[in-house]
């Protein structure tokens, strides 16, 4: 420790600067090294590449539903009956948890396309097979913690916070859709 107070102050200021900048550089370096180690857990390129599925709807009769796989998840496609369409369109949005009109969710009113994953904690709701429990609103019912969805896949009762997700899809022709 130098006795001279002026040089001590100078040295201390210099030393603080060196210490802080060393820590800062080491911190940045550590973060830069950590990032690849963390990011490797995100979806890999081949997982991302599998991201679209085509579905032929021509054999799907009115009132029938099929489940296809898209990105490892079930996607529900249902050919709705006129009655179901009517119910889905006419219901009031006032007391819905996640208000969305049927038009916003279903571009072609006959075919509803939904990600078949409950927005609560990810179970697959029932309602695709004819014998399934469909819940109080006639659409889908998640048995895990009791979420009820209507004919438009909107959450009406139970713990799920949002409506069943609509995947991005487009009609390639009248009867073929491409999901993803």
């Amino acid at each position, binding site marked *: 420790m130098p006795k001279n107070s002026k040089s001590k102050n100078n040295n201390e200021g210099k030393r603080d600067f060196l210490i802080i900048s060393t820590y800062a550089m080491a911190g940045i370096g550590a973060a830069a090294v950590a990032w690849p180690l*963390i990011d490797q*857990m*995100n*979806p*890999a390129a081949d*997982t991302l590449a599998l991201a679209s599925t085509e579905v032929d709807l021509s054999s799907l009769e009115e009132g029938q539903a099929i*489940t296809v*796989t898209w*990105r*490892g*998840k*079930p996607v529900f496609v249902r050919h709705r009956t006129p009655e179901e369409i009517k119910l889905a369109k006419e219901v009031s949005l006032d007391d819905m948890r996640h208000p969305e009109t049927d038009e916003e969710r279903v571009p072609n009113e006959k075919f509803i396309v939904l990600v078949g*994953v409950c927005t*609560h*904690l*990810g*179970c*697959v709701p029932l309602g695709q097979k004819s014998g399934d429990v469909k819940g109080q609103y006639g659409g889908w019912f*998640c*048995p*895990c*913690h*009791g979420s009820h969805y209507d004919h438009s896949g909107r959450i009406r009762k139970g*713990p*799920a*916070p949002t409506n069943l997700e609509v995947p991005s899809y487009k009609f390639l022709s009248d009867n073929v859709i491409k999901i993803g």
Partner: protein
Amino acid sequence: MSKSKFKNPVVKWIDHRLPVFSFMDHELNHYPTPKNLNYFWNFGSLAGFALVTMIVTGIVLSMNYTAHVDYAFDSVERIMRDVNHGWLIRYIHMNGASFFFIVVYIHIFRGLYYGSYKAPRELLWILGVLILLLMMATAFMGYVLPWGQMSFWGATVITNLFSAIPLVGESIVTWLWGGFSVDNSTLNRFFSLHFVLPFVIVGVVILHLIALHRFGSNNPIGIDVKGTQDTVPFSPYYTIKDLFGLSVFLSFFAAAVFFFPNFMGHPDNYIEANPMVTPAHIVPEWYFLPFYAILRAIPDKLGGVLFMFGAIAVLFVLPWLDRSSVRSSQFRPIYKIFFWILLFDCILLGYLGAMPAEGIYVILSRIATAYYFFHFLILFPLLPYIEKTKPLPISISEPILGGAATASAFATREKK
């Protein structure tokens, strides 16, 4: 201490250069231990035994296990049918996880009853809660490995809990999965973490023991050791008592492994995972049920997740929530009653976690959850202001030996 305490020349030679034998002699042989410990003090060494059992059986299981969605289920079936003694090793590992939790839960309630978390043992307690969390993570990921229906859907529901986090939730879940659903990437990383976390637990257990040996064990009357008249050397007194406890434990454990190996499991996990179909009633392993009940008791997704993690978070801060300086419930007449209510409450939550989330079960879950948090957040801090505790004995020897020991305890105190 110029003369070595060891006779064996090899031991002596090594110990002079690397004092591991001195260390073991000090910590496991002479280590002064309160002489009044009851059988609830056996559960620490039992937990250590369970951990070692899990590591040994886990390493041999992984020699035959394949972490791939197409092969995992079949590789576990092969372990059960074709691998020599595979059924035994897997049943030990499977039931070992349950017994590990039984032992650790008893160990924790022992701490709650005798106030073992109070000063100066706060860090010892916190390290214990950390071990519990690590065990939960390990057991959860281990249960995914056999890739049965419960494995898959348990993993889906639990990882989805993180989607409740505002803004970044969905990205975190995708990151945890390494894809857009629980899939091969998820299984691979869970295997990797399931393999390594038990060794992290070993590290934390070592810290837990270092903290324990700083002040020594608490004891049933919860007062400090006043001198050598209150203690006995760890060996042979507690080594033999721990070994006796171990043999009783092993009798129960062997009964489960050989006669009821699937009693604590779920039959749906013998159906291979199917990402398209959720089983009608999914339940986690029994040791998660109380927490699962709390999750479902709250009608809001984020709220449920917060309360569930909160149930463990309160344990971390318990040493500061409890304002009473009296450790043992033996001298806290009111707390003692509430202790049993808490124990009942946790068992009730466990039962409710296994029931469907509807009707009366939901109402009861809410009441039981409310009580749990009331107990930790209100009762612990406020009770000491109303409760009149019973007089504490002067020393550990006093209630056992009566007058004579009291006099000698006074004498030792006087000398200090």
